[in-house]
Every structure is written in structure tokens, then in C-alpha cells.
């Protein structure tokens, strides 16, 4: 099914199952421990050996010598694989650095060997006995230093993957120079780690030339393709299975060393091997959100109309890596005739930077939405009113392109009303509650919508049950549930009569989970397959499919009805289709919107910051399941608090690695950090984006949160911090004296 004209009325609009707050259908499996994660497929592979990876001890250089003799003789050791004995390996399309290093070392903790032994303990002990001599080389580990000479970067998000290095509309420099009110500030965001609960893990089993890999991955087909490329075997020989994923946030979009080393280890050992990455490898041997340095300039009229806006961002990555696209939202969010955005990309020898929940917009809004708060203060204007004043219903770079739906103003107004924004004291540092300095802040949430082709197979069995199969993944988001809701709605059956099977390359290729495209894209693919299945059912039952109604296990049309199950009396029906996307995203800008409101308190003595209240209002198309959508948004808000107040991978600029590489050193919020959170979804159905009329919320939810917190902290203290995370040491010296 090609989606190239706006959706008309369709069975989803009935919202009998879709749009209902249905609890996750996979919930009981997870709460009772019956959902098998990558390391837990004890039923299908009963005799695995254990692989433990040795990571590079240096950030840049080469392996001078590697001595395996002691490790190979250690108790229980079956095989040791290194680049020397692994045979020729390719590099996956989505990998920046090789997943098995040697002799060249590209980054710290790059895998250099896997030790396979009978038990995990034996493999761990033997891995420590692999002797590697390194020849260390000078590495580039200092982003600020490297940015001094970094070139402009192409925009990887543009359709041709390499848009112009700069985007210009009007004459920014002249308009900015003449603007009566000006802001020109620098903001920094740090490297961040996804820190999902389940680290990467894989179980590999060979059957002759055929490899099955049970893993934890968001994108089945990408992983399968890249594993085949890496191993140099036909894609058809790889089965890639990932039914349950213990969190991803972008860190599991790509093939990583766990899967490659499990496959190589299993080949060498002649038996199935499983490998899990130790926690320190998550930041240092997978991907992370790259640090940014952002300069923002805004010129406005005295009454708050933006005349000129410029956003220039710098980030770093390994050679051939991508920039962090922190300017995304600035091209689209606010009105203004004169615009400039650009990105610089420095070469760094730190581990690979890549997508983490809302790549681009999350760090971009951390900066832009502080800048807007600062501009509001310069103008003597309410921050909400400044955003309303500069709303635009068209793409500001291409005014002929309207937004498909854009109810940002509705989010702002509803949020301000519900939060009690009018009680905010606009003078910073003016509100006290005992020893606490109290403030309120807000920020806009914005995240572009992406649609990805997505396929599904739907089967109506003779027992009347509907089975959906697609390689879509559920990374804790609720995919199983919204797919079941979609099929139930389309086929007119109860959700209990739908079985959803996900995460297996034996199933049709889906969008996968990422970029908040998963919910809308994958359910649209299921919609397309269900349309075909309805046609097949209608044909068997003698209905004109176009006007048949599927409801309560019945098919109604003309002036007669039939039982759905009668269609399969002589054999089950199977239909497969995929959704493909036409050019509606070219004629309409498709984005999601929201507003975050935060109350924060700062200890007047110690400077400690604690969030007191949070509210998000989202306008993001049809909400397929308010319960799972709310869980996505409150999780994202929690992650936003982490970004605001504590999350930072500390770079050792001499030794070239992320130092705080465990969950004691890399702090993320705990329950005690998270106060009452409220989420409101505005009623919306966006017919330009998909037959589901839905968009995504999982990344929208984090966008702007950190700035809302930072703005609340500023409102509490009167001390502006532009370097994330906003930790107490950054404002301590400017707080009121205490002794």
C-alpha cells in the first residue's frame, strides 16, 4: 500500500480498540520472567558456551603483539578469536569503526578478542589472561580543541543524505545587526550514555553454513544485513531474532560486537556461544550521544518578533562518523525571515557517537530553549507568550510548505493553564520556601516525524484467531500492544483474539524501532496487511470489500451479515503487505509538538537541585494507546531530568576514554529524583501522515525537558547555567551568601 494522499475515513477511526488505554499484552510475560531476553533462550539452545570480550586498553594506536598462550591453556577454554585468526571480515553499513579491532585500534574498549569457555566464570578469568601489547598513538580526544579546525558538515538528515553544509534564508547577518534586541550565547551539552537496563547480548548458533542469532536489537533487518556483510556470508543464511529488548534508546539500532563475537566464537568453538557486553562497554564500545558546542544568536523586535535566528553547532565523531544534528528544530520551530543554521564536525578518537533518543532535537532544544528563555527576559516578555508570538504554520525556510498539523499554541496554552504558570514570579531568585529557592520554567518540545516502509503478514486461522507477524521490535515501548489493537480494530475482533509475533527476520521487514517512527510506521504496515486480509475475507464471503464492515466477529455489508470465521471454514487466510510512503512529507512538514512545564527547587545552602513538579502537553497526532504513550512520555521526561541535572560521560582527554563507565559513576535519575509527572495529549488526528493518523511521542517526550528544568533553576536562583548538566558546582559561587 502506498500512502500518497491524505487518509480518508477508515476503520481505525472507529477507535473501538485503537486509542484505548489497553495494558501491555506482553506485560504478564515480563513481570513473571517468562519473556526470554537475548541471554535467556535456554529452551532453544541448551548447551551454550560463554564468550567474554577483551576490549582495547588504549584509545588510539595499534596492537604490537597479542599473546594467547596463557589464556588458551586456562581451564575450560575452548577457543580464542582475534583479528589475526578470525579470517577476513567486512564492516557493516551502519558501523563507523570495526567491531573487531586489530592491529589498528580506533577507540577504547574496541573488541580485540573473544575468549570462549565452558562457563562464564572460566571465560571471564581467561579473558584477563590475554596479553596485549599496545603501541599507543596520539589521539584526538578534546572536542573544543578539535572544533577549532573542524570543517562544516553536510546534513545527514536531508533526503540526499548530504544537504548543504549551511542552510541560509534571507540575510541573517544584516538582520541580526539591525535587530533592536539581541541574544548571542554559547551552550554546551555533554556526551551521554543510553544506559538502558539490558546491555547488548547475543546467542549465536551455527547449523552448517546457517547462523541463527538471538540478540537484543531495535532494527532486525539492519542487524541481519550488517552481520552478513561483516561475516562475508549471504544474508539468507542469517536468521536474526530479537523478540524482547530490555531498553535501547538508540544504542541497539546497530549491529555491535556482542553479535559478531558470538558468531565468530561459535564458529571457532563448534557450538553455540553467548556473549553479553559488560556495563563499561556500553559507553566505550557501543555508541553514545555526542557532546555539542552550540552558538545561538537571535535578533528580535522590541515586541518579540524574531527577525533573525542563527544556530551553529559543533560535535565530534570517529572518522566517517556523522554530526549530531542539533540544529534540526531551529530550521522549523519559530518564525523569522532571516535564518542561518550550520554544523561542524570534528574528528575524534573517542568511541562512536550516534543516535540516542531524539538525536539532534534533544541536545538542540537543550540549547535553543534556554536561549528563548533568555530572550524573553531581555524583552521583558512572558516565555510562553514569546513562543506563541513566533509560532508558524508553515516551514519558515519554504513558506509554501504548511505543517500537516501544528498545535503548538494549544500545548502552550493548555499547559500554562493546567500548571498554574500565571503564579510564576518573573523576577528570578525571588521565591523562597524555607531554605529552598523555588522557580518555574518551561520549554517547547519539537521532534520531526519520520515514516519508514513497514511490512506485516496477517493470518486468520480456522480458530478465528488473527496472527500478526512482522520483524518490528518492542523495546519496552508497547509495540506488541498497539499492533494487536490495530489488527483487532481492522478485523473486528477482540484484542484477546490477536496473537502478535515480533522481532524475527523470518517475518516481513518492518520499520523497526527508532526515531519515534516505530509506532506509526509499523501499525500502518499492519493496517495495509489487514486491508488485504479484509479483501480476501470479503471475497470468500461474497461481500463487496469496499463497503464491508468488520465488527464483533461479524462482517456486515449491503443488507446481510456473516461470521468472520466462516471465511476460513475451508482453510486459513493469509495476507501480506507493506506500507510505503509517497511524497506527503515533501508537500507537508510533518512534526510533533509539545510543551514542558517544570517547578524546581534549589537548596539555598548547598545548591542541590530537586525537581518538584512536571507537566507535558503533547500534540502528536492520534494517540494509539494513551497508557503506553503516557509511559513513553513520563520515561522521556525522566531521561530529560537526567540530561538536565546529572548525565555526563566524563572524557579523559589524555587517555581517551569515558571514565565514569558504570552506573555508579554515570548517574541517571532514581525514583527519589522524580516528582509528580502529568501528561496531557491533545485530541488530534493527522491525516497527512498515515492511515493511522498517528505520529510518535517517545522522543518528543524528552525534547525540551532539560531546558525547562534549567529555566526553572534559573528562575529559582537568578544564576544562568549554559553548560549541561546543571550541577550544583556551576552555580554554587553565585548563590546568596549563607554565613
Amino acid at each position: 500500500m502506498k500512502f500518497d494522499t491524505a487518509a480518508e475515513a477508515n476503520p481505525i477511526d472507529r477507535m473501538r480498540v485503537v486509542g484505548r488505554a489497553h495494558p501491555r499484552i506482553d506485560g504478564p510475560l515480563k513481570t513473571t520472567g517468562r519473556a526470554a531476553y537475548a541471554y535467556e533462550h535456554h529452551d532453544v539452545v541448551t548447551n551454550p558456551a560463554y564468550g567474554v570480550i577483551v576490549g582495547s586498553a588504549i584509545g588510539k594506536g595499534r596492537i604490537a603483539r597479542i599473546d594467547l598462550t596463557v589464556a588458551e591453556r586456562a581451564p575450560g577454554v575452548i577457543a580464542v578469536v582475534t583479528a589475526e585468526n578470525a579470517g577476513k571480515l567486512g564492516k557493516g553499513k551502519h558501523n563507523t569503526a570495526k567491531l573487531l579491532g586489530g592491529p589498528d585500534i580506533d577507540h577504547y574498549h574496541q573488541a580485540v578478542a573473544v575468549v570462549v569457555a565452558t562457563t562464564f566464570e572460566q571465560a571471564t578469568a581467561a579473558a584477563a589472561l590475554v596479553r596485549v601489547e599496545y603501541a599507543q598513538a596520539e589521539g584526538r580526544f578534546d572536542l573544543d580543541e578539535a572544533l577549532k579546525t573542524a570543517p562544516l558538515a553536510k546534513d545527514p538528515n536531508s533526503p540526499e543524505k548530504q544537504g548543504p553544509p549551511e542552510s541560509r534564508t534571507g540575510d541573517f547577518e544584516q538582520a541580526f545587526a539591525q535587530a533592536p534586541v539581541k541574544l548571542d550565547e554559547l551552550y554546551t551539552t555533554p556526551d551521554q550514555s543510553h544506559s538502558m537496563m539490558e546491555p547488548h547480548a547475543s546467542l549465536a548458533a551455527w547449523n552448517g553454513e546457517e547462523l541463527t542469532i538471538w540478540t537484543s536489537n531495535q532494527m532486525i533487518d539492519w542487524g541481519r544485513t550488517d552481520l552478513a556483510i561483516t561475516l562475508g556470508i549471504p544474508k539468507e543464511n542469517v536468521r536474526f531474532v530479537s523478540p524482547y529488548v530490555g531498553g535501547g534508546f538508540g544504542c541497539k539500532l546497530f549491529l555491535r560486537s556482542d553479535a559478531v563475537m558470538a558468531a565468530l566464537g561459535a564458529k571457532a568453538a563448534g557450538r553455540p556461544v553467548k556473549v553479553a557486553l559488560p556495563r563499561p562497554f556500553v559507553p566505550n564500545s557501543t555508541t553514545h550521544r555526542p557532546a555539542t558546542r552550540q552558538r545561538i544568536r537571535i535578533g528580535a523586535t522590541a515586541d518579540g518578533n524574531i527577525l533573525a535566528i542563527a544556530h551553529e553547532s559543533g560535535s565530534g565523531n570517529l572518522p566517517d562518523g556523522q554530526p549530531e544534528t542539533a540544529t534540526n528544530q531551529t530550521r522549523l520551530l519559530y518564525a523569522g525571515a532571516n535564518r542561518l543554521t550550520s554544523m561542524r564536525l570534528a574528528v575524534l578518537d573517542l568511541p562512536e557517537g550516534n543516535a540516542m533518543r531524539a538525536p539532534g532535537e534533544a541536545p538542540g532544544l537543550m540549547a535553543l530553549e534556554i536561549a528563548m528563555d533568555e530572550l524573553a527576559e531581555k524583552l521583558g516578555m512572558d516565555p510562553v507568550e514569546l513562543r506563541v508570538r513566533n509560532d508558524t504554520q508553515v516551514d519558515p525556510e519554504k513558506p509554501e510548505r504548511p505543517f500537516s498539523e501544528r498545535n503548538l499554541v494549544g500545548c502552550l496554552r493548555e499547559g500554562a493553564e493546567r500548571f498554574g504558570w500565571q503564579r510564576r514570579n518573573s523576577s528570578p531568585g525571588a521565591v523562597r520556601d524555607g531554605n529552598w529557592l523555588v522557580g518555574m520554567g518551561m520549554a517547547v518540545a519539537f521532534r520531526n516525524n519520520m515514516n519508514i516502509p513497514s511490512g506485516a503478514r496477517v493470518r486468520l486461522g480456522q480458530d478465528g484467531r488473527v496472527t500478526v507477524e512482522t520483524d518490528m521490535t518492542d523495546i519496552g515501548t508497547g509495540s506488541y500492544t498497539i499492533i494487536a489493537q490495530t489488527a483487532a480494530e481492522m478485523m473486528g475482533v477482540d484484542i484477546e483474539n490477536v496473537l502478535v509475533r515480533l522481532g524475527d527476520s523470518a517475518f516481513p521487514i518492518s520499520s523497526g524501532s527508532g526515531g519515534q517512527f516505530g509506532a506509526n510506521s509499523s501499525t500502518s504496515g499492519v493496517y495495509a496487511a489487514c486491508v488485504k486480509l479484509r479483501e480476501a475475507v470479503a471475497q470468500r464471503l461474497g461481500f463487496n470489500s469496499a463497503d464491508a464492515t468488520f465488527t464483533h466477529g461479524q462482517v456486515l455489508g449491503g443488507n446481510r451479515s456473516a461470521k468472520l470465521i466462516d471465511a476460513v471454514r475451508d482453510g486459513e487466510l493469509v495476507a501480506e503487505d507493506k506500507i510505503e510512503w509517497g511524497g506527503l512529507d515533501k508537500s507537508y512538514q510533518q512534526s510533533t509538538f509539545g510543551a514542558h512545564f517544570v517547578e524546581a527547587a534549589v537548596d539555598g545552602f548547598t545548591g542541590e537541585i530537586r525537581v518538584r513538579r512536571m507537566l507535558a502537553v503533547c500534540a502528536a497526532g492520534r494517540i494509539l494507546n494513551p497508557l503506553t504513550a503516557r509511559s513513553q512520555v513520563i520515561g522521556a521526561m525522566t531521561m530529560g531530568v537526567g540530561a538536565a541535572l546529572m548525565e555526563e560521560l566524563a572524557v579523559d582527554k589524555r587517555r581517551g576514554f569515558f571514565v565514569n563507565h558504570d552506573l555508579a559513576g554515570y548517574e541517571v535519575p532514581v525514583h527519589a529524583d522524580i516528582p509528580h509527572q502529568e501528561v496531557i495529549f491533545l485530541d488530534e488526528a493527522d491525516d497527512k501522515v498515515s492511515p493511522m493518523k498517528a505520529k510518535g511521542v517517545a522522543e518528543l517526550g524528552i525534547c525540551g525537558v532539560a531546558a525547562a528544568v534549567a529555566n526553572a533553576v534559573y528562575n529559582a536562583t537568578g544564576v544562568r547555567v549554559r553548560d549541561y548538566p546543571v550541577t550544583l558546582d556551576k552555580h554554587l559561587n553565585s548563590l546568596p551568601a549563607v554565613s
Partner: protein
Amino acid sequence: MRSFTYERASLAQEAAAKAQETPGAKFIAGGTNLLDLMKLEIETPQHLIDVNGLKFDKIEKTEDGGLRIGALVRNTALAADMRVRRDYGVLSRALLAGASGQLRNKATTAGNLLQRTRCPYFYDTNQPCNKRTPGSGCAAIAGYSRQLGVIGVSEACIATNPSDMAVAMRALDAEVETIDAAGRTRKIPIADFHRLPGDRPDLETTLSSGELITAVTLPPPLRGTHIYKKVRDRASYAFALVSVAAVLQRDGTGRLAVGGVAPKPWRIEKAEAELRGGAKPFSARLLADAKPTNENAFKVTLVERTVAAVMHEARQK
């Protein structure tokens, strides 16, 4: 983790003797720190002597009206003990500010005193660390040092002691009771229990080889306002940037020990003479010899402001 042998001890002196005579032996009780370190091969004991079977799990009154806390009393039990809550509030509060409920259920009084630093370079065996591998150097001093020590540190090591409990015990002038391989017992004032690193940061306490902690004794209750204030980046389950254990009197005098800044709970009795003058002169005296890095210099200010917070809180009560 390296392979090791294991035995359960039933008599304290035998355990101490065994520890002294067996190469690479270590005691294990709660194991909340030791097992983590063994998995990372930061600790590589060849033999573990499990002391959980020793009968050091009671909290008893002492003759002089203080409390004797058995070495194996779990942090949870100690924090919840009615006598501790009533008479040694600073200790109960310090315990509850540390770790998590699950860890406190396992962690013992003696083990808490012996827990090792959380310096991230100590935890990464690819990095030089004089505490882990004497003579290899210190990567932290010119590296990521925001969490690390500002006073009592040396050219060889700037690691901090992560304990909350020990800071309160320092304010209370607790004593550590031990038994050695020959059956001799002694009491070590808490002030003398932890060593400063100097050029041997691998040596962290004044315990001799095989010497086993049997109890910690608290002197008779100290009247006054008991406060433990722990400052950290997140609200729970984090090590202190700075913590203050205080017992303060209405006249402005008191005792005050600071955590998160040094290789041991940091208290200078003479500095307490400055308390009547307020947090500033007290802190200036307490940290007169501070040698912070650029990254952790804020701790000097933070100590002063946290002490001020504690004094303010005491005045409100």
C-alpha cells in the same frame, strides 16, 4: 574473577590466625564491595574466610553506658536499632543516607569501615592506579577528579573514603575493637583507623596482618542535635560530594566531621573551637591544608555552605 578457596570460620582467633598464615587470604562478610572488586579482578584473594558464622551480630550496652556494635551487625539493623535512633541519631541518619535498602541489608558494620574507594580509575584495571597497583601512577590527579579528595591526599593518590557511617562514627569518637592471630585484642580510635595515603595508598587501615574487627564501640550518648547532611547530584543512591556529621549544642559548640573530601572521615578537633564564629572560620581551619584540583575545588566552598546549612538546621530545632 580468579578462582579461590573458601572456608567458614567459627572462632574469631582461628579466623585471624588463618588469615595471617594463608597467602592472599581475605575475610568476607556481606561481600557487597569485595565481590564486585573480585569480579573486576581489582581484588584477587586466593582464599576467602567467611566470618558470617561468628557471633558478632549483637548490639549491647557497655559498662560505661555506651554501645558495643558487633562487627557483623547489618547496616539496616544498626540504623533501625531504637537505642541508636534515640541516642546516636547522627549514626542512624548516616547509615540511611548510604547505598540502597538491599545493600544495607547485606553490608556489615566492619565491612562498611573497610569498603574501598569509588575512584573510577581504581575501578578500571587498564588505568594506572597506585592504590590498586602500587607504583603504577595515578591517572586521577590530572584526569577526571570531580568526585575525589581535596585534603589529606598525596601526590600518589587523591581517592576518598566513600563511607557515610564512618563519618558519623568519627563525630561520635567510636572505637574499633579487634582481635589478632595471637588472640590479643585492642581498641583503635576511629581517628587512627584509616591511614592517609602518603606514598602507600594501597595501605588503607592500621590493621595488622590477619587482624579481625570484632566490634565498634560508641561512647555514652552525646546530647545535642544530631544531624547528618549528605550533598549529592541526585537525591538517593549516590556517593557524597560532601557530607557533614554533626552533634551541635545550643551554645554553638559541637563536633563536626566531614565526608567526601578525604581518604578518611575528616575531623580536626581544634577547628571546632572556631564553630562559635560560624561556618566560615570553622571550614577555613578544617580545610586549611586543602589541595584541590580544578575539577573539585568547589568542594571547599561546598563544605563551608553545608556546614552553614547544618548549623542553621540545628538552630531551628
